[in-house]
């Protein structure tokens, strides 16, 4: 009985946490390159709407996913221009991106409000896992390809970030942009690229919600998940593998909260997803203080040639 609950929780978590994981992985890259992007929520909304419209009009869900990612990426370039080229305040620019994105999605999406997607990304058929043992079958029941791709993404991105030379360049831009510049790394290009990549991942996350998780459109459908992604980035110490663990942990907690609905008022349970990250951040920062793991040193600071700090 207990094992069954754990398995089904893990199973639902795989599906629920996928967009959170995708958006977090993107934000990790942006922040590792030294740029804080608080616009994740806005980029997810824009990706969700454009992805939904593309999938709806072409009846091809994968085309929708593609469009959602590209639009999310393009949308993030506004933040890149403001924070890298104009060297504006990154916190405010990110907030502006969220306001703009949620506003645009709400305004432009009015005509699509409440529409359902006829051809969503379907769950994997059970035959795929037929030869596997029961535990595996239960774990992957009703999951879809995109959700499972999240795991592949996390491992690949971890490898790129910590085991390859371009990954090292990216991290160096976040730790000490002046030194990287002196060594011939194009800080400007790396930061633009990292923000763009973050936008693509957030757009993919949004599109996943609108095309696979809940194949429909409503203007509030990301429900603050973009902000959870920003919190999870800190929670995972800017490491894609920890983000994998963190995202599924959050996903499992939400699912358990959902199950408690029988006993506790839904409004109270609905606020738990927003309390978890706050509590998690408390523990994380205590731990980080002790172990001296920290924020990328150059995070949030615009880089300007010829000035120190």
């Amino acid at each position: 009985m207990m094992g069954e609950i754990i398995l089904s929780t893990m199973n639902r978590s795989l599906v629920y946490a996928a967009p959170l994981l995708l958006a977090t992985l993107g934000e990790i890259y942006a922040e590792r390159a030294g740029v804080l992007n608080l616009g994740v929520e806005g980029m997810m909304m824009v990706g969700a709407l454009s992805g939904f419209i593309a999938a709806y009009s072409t009846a091809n869900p994968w085309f929708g996913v593609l469009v959602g990612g590209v639009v999310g990426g393009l949308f993030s370039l506004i933040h890149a221009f403001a924070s890298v080229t104009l060297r504006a305040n990154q916190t405010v620019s990110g907030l502006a991106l969220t306001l703009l994105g949620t506003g645009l999605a709400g305004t432009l999406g009015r005509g699509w409000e409440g529409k359902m997607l006829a051809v969503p990304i379907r769950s994997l058929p059970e035959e795929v896992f037929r030869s596997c043992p029961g535990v595996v079958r239960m774990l992957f029941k009703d999951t879809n390809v995109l959700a499972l791709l999240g795991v592949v993404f996390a491992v690949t991105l971890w490898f790129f970030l910590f085991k390859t030379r371009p990954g090292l360049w990216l991290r160096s831009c976040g730790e000490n942009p002046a030194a990287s510049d002196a060594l011939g790394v194009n800080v400007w290009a790396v930061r633009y690229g990292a923000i763009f990549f973050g936008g693509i991942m957030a757009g993919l996350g949004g599109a996943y919600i609108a095309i696979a998780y809940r194949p429909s459109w409503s203007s509030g459908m990301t429900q603050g998940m973009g902000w959870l992604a920003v919190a999870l980035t800190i929670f995972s110490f800017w490491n894609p593998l920890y983000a994998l663990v963190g995202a599924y942990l959050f996903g499992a907690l939400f699912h358990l909260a959902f199950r408690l609905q029988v006993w506790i008022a839904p409004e109270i349970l609905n606020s738990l997803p927003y309390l978890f990250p706050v509590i998690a951040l408390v523990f994380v920062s205590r731990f980080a203080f002790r172990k001296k793991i920290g924020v990328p040193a150059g995070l949030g600071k615009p880089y300007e040639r010829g000035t120190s700090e």
Partner: protein
Amino acid sequence: MLYRISPLVAYTVFFRGAFGSWYAISETLKRTIPLLLVGSGLALAFRAQVLNIGAEGQILFGAVAATWVALFLSPPAGVTLLVMFLLGFLAGAGWALIPAFLKTRFAVNEVLSSLMLNYVAFNVVLYLIAGPWKGKSVRGFTYTDTFPESAWLGTLGMTKVPYFTLFSGIVVAILGYYFLKKTAWGFELRIVGNSPDTARLLGISEERVIFLTMMLSGGLAGFAGVGEVAGIHHLLRHPSHISLGYGYTAIIVAWLARANPLATLLTAFLLGALISGGDALRVSLGIPFQVVSVFNGLILFFLIATERFGHYRVSVRRKVKG
């Protein structure tokens, strides 16, 4: 345009809705009041580089405290409003204390924690109006009973503009400016905001500044929340009706005013006009209210972009001198 409405028509509706008649101006003023109260508080916080993004939730907690006083505490009629505003201020300040405490004690980023608490406050109000505080006479709807009239704010003439909160907003903006420029605490606050290193050298407690600005901005947001339920709705209802995103728009008000409380007198009015104009677009042309968010986002981008150009000029002059 997407809605097959000519932009010219949209602009006309927008400006008529914001300034076109006495009614429109009173609607704009009604929206200006919370923006002014919250915006001048946020201006103080932003000046100290304390980014309180949780004003939306702090407004709601002020409204909740006011509702509790009006419906359940029932103090003598003469002091009802006084107690409501007092407890509303404290509730908003208390809700803002959480991110302040987390930031000073655990170094938790206040943008994230204050923002997350907005969602929590939103759900708390939903819970109250659907559950324990649901009105006895409202049947299928989810809001509380109407407040007794001793808990209503008087309004200006024939309009729906409560004069007490309008007057308070103006006073708060002026006092805030005085506080910032003429008092020792205001001085400390500016130092912490401009250069945390200098503040440390001078022995100024950054913690105290964080607590002070969070409590002031949160308290003023709570005060504004009381004003909304006591002056306009006279009951507690769906959170998105109590605050039309005032907590978020007030961020723009404070930033547009360059964190100067006195300047929020102007910027709050401008953004108030934006909200009532946006509301007119929704009512007469069916354009969703989220269009206000689009404007807000664009304003903010242009603002931070131009701010940088200002910096360029300063540095050029320095080079000429040296």
